[in-house]
């Protein structure tokens, strides 16, 4: 179902709209944010240089590093009086990324989420069980406001409390489930364990996102939950969920809401722009956000653009499901983990060798993480309790840092493969 007329604009109409919005955006950030002005000056570009959409290539990229340098509010373009809400990333790799919204931004976002839900076939008659986390994470509240904007009924249950989720699903007759795909699988397994036939539930659609997942996982979820599984994509730096969404008609690729977010694909090494169809890093420019706009934000997500028409009638380009990233970030049970964090913990333990390996796997629907650490002579002891103490200490420190537990395996020296180039720190055995 098409929620807004803008979703079917012709390419020409859309490009006129995009250029107008881009020019206004660039002029505004140049004027309001000294950091952006500095970067543009250094790149030798002024707002007047943006005469066509291609001219966006003259503008410098924005990276997570830029966001960190301006922590917390340095890139906001409005006074804090006009900011009605902030969200933040978990900050697991340093300073969290803080994003802000004006009242208009929240409305815009709600509209985009209403569009997304609508694309997934959700209507105002639906009962939406929102199992995305509520809080600083953009998923819960983003989806919540969108559901209300659409006029559906929302159950703001948030994540966790699996038994209660199932009871509510049965008692309230939830027709739509919003959650991460891994949590949906958890729910599916709990439903099966409880001996409940998924077909006896009222669920018809699941809208799953916030982590990489595969087509196989989609099939599994559709079968186990007896629903249609739709992809949703977004990231807090851009707005949150609702940047792109799959449609119920095709379930092939996610329509990018191009009237609000200008997508580019760049080469993952040279950052040169790539043509439609070529695979590279996704870059977004927010065309309409007020409090926290971003110009050419490098998402580190790998995808490509598809410009062939879709039977749903939306004119927006599509992107296939994101299944990879340009950096080494791992998403383990929904938590972002960088190998460098694990390394940091290991290096802080005296005598631990710099050789380690992280093995990620999935058992059932649960991600597992094992950290293999080589035992050097300086930490080795002939007493079991001392070695077990060492591994417990590492485990506790990792849990403290990333909030997720892992198994520590002490291994013999030189058993972790040495590479001649970049060390392979991570072995991800999960089938995504």
């Amino acid at each position, binding site marked *: 179902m098409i929620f807004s007329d803008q979703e079917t604009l012709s390419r020409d109409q859309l490009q006129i709209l995009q250029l107008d919005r881009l020019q206004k955006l660039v002029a505004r950030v140049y004027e309001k944010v000294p950091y952006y002005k500095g970067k543009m000056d250094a790149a030798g570009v002024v707002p007047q240089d943006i005469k066509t959409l291609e001219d966006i290539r003259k503008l410098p990229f924005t990276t997570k590093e830029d966001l960190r340098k301006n922590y917390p509010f340095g890139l906001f373009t409005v006074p804090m009086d006009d900011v009605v809400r902030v969200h933040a990333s978990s900050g697991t790799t340093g300073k969290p990324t803080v994003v802000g919204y004006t009242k208009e931004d929240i409305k815009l976002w709600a509209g985009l989420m209403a569009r997304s839900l609508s694309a997934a076939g959700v209507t105002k008659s639906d009962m939406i069980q929102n199992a995305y986390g509520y809080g600083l994470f953009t998923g819960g509240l983003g989806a919540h406001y969108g559901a209300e904007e659409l006029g559906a009924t929302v159950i703001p249950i948030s994540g966790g409390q699996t038994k209660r989720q199932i009871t509510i699903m049965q008692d309230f007759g939830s027709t739509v489930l919003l959650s991460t795909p891994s949590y949906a699988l958890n729910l599916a397994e709990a439903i099966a364990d409880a001996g409940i036939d998924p077909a006896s539930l009222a669920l018809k659609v699941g809208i799953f996102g916030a982590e990489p997942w595969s087509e196989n996982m989609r099939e599994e979820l559709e079968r186990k939950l007896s629903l249609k599984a739709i992809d949703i994509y977004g990231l807090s730096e851009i707005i949150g969920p609702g940047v792109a969404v799959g449609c119920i008609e095709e379930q092939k690729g996610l329509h990018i809401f191009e009237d609000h977010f200008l997508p580019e694909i760049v080469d993952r090494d040279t950052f040169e722009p790539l043509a439609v169809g070529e695979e590279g890093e996704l870059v977004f420019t927010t065309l309409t956000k007020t409090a926290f706009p971003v110009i050419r934000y490098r998402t580190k997500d790998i995808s490509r653009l598809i410009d062939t028409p879709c039977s749903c009638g939306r004119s927006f380009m599509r992107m296939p499901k994101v299944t990879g990233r340009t950096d080494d970030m791992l998403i383990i049970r929904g938590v972002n983990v960088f190998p460098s964090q694990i390394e940091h913990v290991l290096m802080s333990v005296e005598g631990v060798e710099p050789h380690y390996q992280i093995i990620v796997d999935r058992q059932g629907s649960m991600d597992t993480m094992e950290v293999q650490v080589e*035992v*050097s*002579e300086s930490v*080795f*002891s*002939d*007493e*079991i309790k001392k*070695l*077990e103490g060492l*591994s417990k200490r590492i485990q506790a420190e990792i849990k403290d840092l990333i909030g997720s537990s892992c198994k520590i*395996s*002490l*291994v*013999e*020296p*030189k*058993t972790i493969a040495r590479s001649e180039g970049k060390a392979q720190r991570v072995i991800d055995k999960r089938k995504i």
Partner: protein
Amino acid sequence: MKVEQIAIFLENRSGRLAEITAILAENGINIRALSLADTADFGILRLIVNDNDKAKKILKENGFTVGKTEVLVVEVPDHPGGLAGTLKVIKAANLNVEYMYAFAQRSGQTGLIIFRFDEVDLAIAALQKAGLRILTGEEVYAI
């Protein structure tokens, strides 16, 4: 009094123990006493051999993590209650045994117990005071 023992870190992988013993055999090293402590994830092999320095060097060259520890080898009468009497002495002296293992002598009336104490010197004093015989390194390596 103190006897040197080497300890080797072992992953729980099949064939690791066979590899170590093969390496020792190739280098003419004779094992005098052995104990293997294992957990679900790893093991610690403790050895007293006839030439600890050589064994340690060779094992390290072969990529093993090797540690050296001092243990006490105590003669215990080889009859019912022999070990109980010794442990009574240890208990009375408030000594903490980290671990212990035993081996019997080929001939003679005594068994040998290898003790790992935190406080080795206190242990020596207490055991000697109770009249127990502690073997020297030379005696053990030459068994």
